[in-house]
């Protein structure tokens, strides 16, 4: 009798462990399904605003061709580098998304180019993947942790988190300073969809957030033949060593448990423009670290940042 109970308990534990491993493999496959060459349509439209005098801004639409390369593929970490192909001839290093399994360390965006460090409880991130999204220069953008869902033939991941203004509005708008992103990334039969329900927020120190307007975003990634992105793959082969050094430099910066505040410009030039110069000469890690350090400022901790 006692033996049979022990056997049953062991069998149950093994079964659960196998199920968890299978689920993790499904997660990993879903993340890697975002790799490849994609034609993308970007569509954003403002929807609701609490104040009657708010005038909705014009819709934003754009198209692009993009290659996503898995630059790290480990058991608990997958890193995807996105590269834009412009007019079939020019390649621009675009955003990067890192996926970390049961990760506890995140930087949530607060405001004014400040990110606050948070240590998430281990039980809160069990079975979850953290998505860390980076700018074109590998500086931080936003982070969020959630569970990949695989039901009814659907494969998606959803998360709400604060972020700086998107690039399309970064230099055009000053009437809000935080975007609370509702991100939904779903793998589809033709590629994947990045659906967004965003809140445009005015955040001031010591005051409650004020919602300015909401927007819907649909970025549709349709997979196309890899040859269409060959120029991007070639470009990456030539520049990947430089960006490996850049990531190593940033890793030293992110190895902290305090806020991270970055200047928006040094010598009237944003960080990504400085990076172009270093990339051109394939600068060493010491030079890259020196550059990053010139952008880092010390600042008091803030408690506004939010992510779920």
């Amino acid at each position, binding site marked *: 009798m006692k033996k049979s109970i022990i056997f049953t308990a062991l069998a149950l534990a093994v079964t659960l462990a196998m199920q968890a491993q299978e689920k993790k493999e499904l997660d990993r496959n879903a993340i890697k399904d975002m790799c490849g060459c994609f034609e993308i349509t970007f569509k954003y439209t403002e929807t609701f605003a609490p*104040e*009657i*005098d708010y*005038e909705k801004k014009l819709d934003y639409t754009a198209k692009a061709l993009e290659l996503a390369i898995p630059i790290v593929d480990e058991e608990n970490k997958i890193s995807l580098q996105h590269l834009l192909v412009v007019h079939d001839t020019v390649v621009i290093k675009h955003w990067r998304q890192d996926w970390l399994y049961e990760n506890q360390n995140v930087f949530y965006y607060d405001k004014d180019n400040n990110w606050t460090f948070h240590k998430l409880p281990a039980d809160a991130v069990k079975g979850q993947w953290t998505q860390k999204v980076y700018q074109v220069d590998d500086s931080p953008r936003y982070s969020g942790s959630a569970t990949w869902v695989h039901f009814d033939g659907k494969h998606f991941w959803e998360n709400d988190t604060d972020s700086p203004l998107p690039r399309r509005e970064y230099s055009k708008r000053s009437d809000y300073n935080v975007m609370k992103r509702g991100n939904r990334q779903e793998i589809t039969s033709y590629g994947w969809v990045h659906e967004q329900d965003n809140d445009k927020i005015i955040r001031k120190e010591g005051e409650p957030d004020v919602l300015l307007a909401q927007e819907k975003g649909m970025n549709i990634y349709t997979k196309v033949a890899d040859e269409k992105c060959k120029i991007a793959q070639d470009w990456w082969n030539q520049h990947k060593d430089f960006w490996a050094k850049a990531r190593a430099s940033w890793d030293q910066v992110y190895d902290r448990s305090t806020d991270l505040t970055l200047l928006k410009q040094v010598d009237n030039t944003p960080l990504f423009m400085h990076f172009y110069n270093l990339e051109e000469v394939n600068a060493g890690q010491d030079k890259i670290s020196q550059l990053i350090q010139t952008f880092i400022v010390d600042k008091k901790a803030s408690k506004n940042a939010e992510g779920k």
Partner: protein
Amino acid sequence: MQRGSKFKVFSLAVIFTALSLFGFGTQKIPAKLQEKIDNAVQSTFGVQEFTLEQLAVHADLNKKTPVEMGGENLFNILLGGNSLGYLYLGEAPSMKNVFDYVVLFNPDLSIKKSKILIYREDYGRQVGSQRWLKQFIGKKAGESLIYGEDIDAISGATISAKSMTLAVNNVLQSMQVLQENNFF
């Protein structure tokens, strides 16, 4: 008896407070409304810095205008001493409440833009959409506006849309009265 005295004292206190708040106090634009007025001027005239100079309309002339011009209603929008145009701030009824609106004028007294700044009901908020309000742009002092003819109707916001049309119509008539009396 004692209870009655206390009530009298309390009543007097309430009356005194009410009078000091509403009766003898000067009318002042609330901060939130003022912020919205400033934003409306900035976005309409494309300026950051400007001054709003209140234009005092004499009581005799105010009697001749269909809309109230005697309080903090009519302003000259100034930039470096030059007039960019005029601003009329008014209040109009919605179904169960009132809303605050502005009509912004070019120097030739044609409407540059109109905006509803504060709306206090859940129904009929469509009236604040620029897709509808833009119909008032270009209308001149003295021009008459009829809801459903000159200005399109809005389904689901009939009372507020009618009210706004009548308000703007009355503002245009009032501006003409001021113009005819060499006010500007």
